[in-house]
């Protein structure tokens, strides 16, 4: 069975199911958006997809193999995770920061030419090459997010799991990052991205999974999931879904849904 698959995944914190019986199939070459209100279990699901949180029930499979039993190094080579908190604890320069993404691949002898070129490609793709020698403290919030994204890309993972990559990015760089996620998928990787902005999801995602209180409300192709009734059930908000002259869909929240 190809792809990344959550099967009956349940994850509990203090006896409460944060993710409850979630079964989703993710496919390579596609961008899947995980959407849902605060506390829906998006980040927890993402962590379990990355093999970091073992489900209390159910399992996550990558190409048919249980992620929990993969060797950590192999898992790290195949699945790249960009956590929501963009932590950078030491004031390292951007080039060093991005090259950390090669750690799961690196052999005993330090950086090889393959590592160097992967880092260079990732930096070019995330548009951070021009400030390669600046240090973390000298970056704006947006520059820092892009550098961290470049870090994950440098690992050239089969699966890219990204938790809210657009926070603190300006409009232009939001579009850049969305385009970047698309191009990563076009090159054959699977992309799973947690987003808050529904219009962004409408723009970037092939597939959409709606989560609420740990359960899947709807999943499938973008057109079939991003519908007013599904979004109302998920976010408790009435929305207007429209289409711009350029053909891009957009979603505008109208009012809180009063049942």
């Amino acid at each position, binding site marked *: 069975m190809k792809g990344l698959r959550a099967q009956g995944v349940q994850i509990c914190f203090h006896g409460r199911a944060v993710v409850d019986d979630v079964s989703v199939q993710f496919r390579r070459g596609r961008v899947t958006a995980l959407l849902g209100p605060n506390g829906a279990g998006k980040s927890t699901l993402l962590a379990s997809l990355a093999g970091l949180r073992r489900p209390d029930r159910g399992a996550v499979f990558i190409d048919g193999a249980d992620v929990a039993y993969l060797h950590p190094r192999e898992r790290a080579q195949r699945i790249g995770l960009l956590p929501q908190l963009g932590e950078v604890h030491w004031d390292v320069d951007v080039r060093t920061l991005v090259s950390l993404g090669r750690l799961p691949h690196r052999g005993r002898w330090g950086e090889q030419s393959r590592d160097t070129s992967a880092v260079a490609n990732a*930096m070019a793709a995330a548009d951070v*090459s021009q400030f390669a020698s600046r240090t973390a403290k000298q970056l704006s919030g947006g520059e820092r997010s892009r550098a961290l994204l470049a870090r994950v890309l440098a690992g050239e993972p089969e699966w890219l799991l990204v938790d809210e990559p657009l926070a603190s990015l300006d409009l232009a760089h939001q579009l850049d990052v969305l385009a970047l996620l698309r191009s990563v998928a076009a090159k054959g990787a699977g992309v799973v991205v947690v987003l808050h902005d529904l219009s962004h999801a409408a723009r970037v995602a092939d597939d959409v999974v709606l989560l609420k209180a740990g359960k899947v409300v709807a999943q499938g192709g973008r057109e079939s999931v991003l519908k007013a009734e599904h979004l109302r059930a998920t976010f408790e908000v009435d929305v207007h879904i429209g289409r711009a002259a350029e053909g891009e869909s957009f979603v505008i929240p109208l009012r809180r849904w009063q049942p």
Partner: protein
Amino acid sequence: MSQTLVAGVSSVPKSREVRLNAALVAALIVAAVFSLIAGKVWLPAEAWSMADPRWLIIAELRIPRTVLAMLIGAALGLSGAAMQGYLRNPLADPGLFGISSGAALGAVISLYFGFAASLLLLPAFALAGAAITMLALALLAGRSGSLVLFALAGIILASIAGSLTTLAISLAPTPFVASQIVTWLLGALTDRSWDDVRLAFPLVLAGALLLAGTARSLDALTLGEQAARSMGVDLRRLQWLVVLGVGLCVGASVATSGIIGFVGLMVPHMVRPLVGSRPSAILLPSALGGALLLLVADTLVRIAPTVSELRLGIAMSLLGGPFFLVMLIRMRRSVV
């Protein structure tokens, strides 16, 4: 084009590292030679023959003291660098683990019961103290791998060991024992012999090898725990490596020379501006820098014009306290 540019950027820090390490080794050699010559008795070139009566001072006192200063300096510098990397806090110091306090308590107990006359009992007690503290630390915080719990457990253990040490001093059977304990706690390398080197060397070596094994994981931790785990880092294994490595290094240091503070705090800070902040890049330079700092400091306290020799532990505290304060003020400014 951009590829060669980036490759160029990457090669700079690498060669910076190599240059710094080479410079530190060179400085260490010079400092070692000076340490062998300098002291209350100066040993010029003509003393360096077996026929000369002063050879005894060189062979049995100066050489072991010089070797021990470097060994312990390296152990403390490396421990500090590894701990700061692990805790992701530039103010972390091996003392924070409680391991040095635990080792000191062990030594103090042996002094209290008058075991110090035996050559091996005091170090053995000190190592046992370090080992028990490490075990307690692992039991308190080991399973979770949580950083906050770990640091707090260390602080609590340090304060318990500290209060028990004070208790031992206040209950000392004779004033002589009390003063013996206090003097020992101050830390020094005076009159150390080859026995001390033989004791410390294998322990420090084992600890250093364990800490060297943390390099990759410490780098990954720069991005936080979740990102590090997603990069394949086993946080519990890392915690064990750090605890055992620091425990062996610090335990061996305290066992042979008492508490010498601030080396592990200061050296990584001096190194960072020179090679950058990547945790693995500062491990080796911190070991070399620690060796150099302690060797120079020990030589200086020997030749300082004081009536009785200034204790090395006091000298390091006099140096380290203000250093720590300046750092704290600077950090506060950057936070505000």
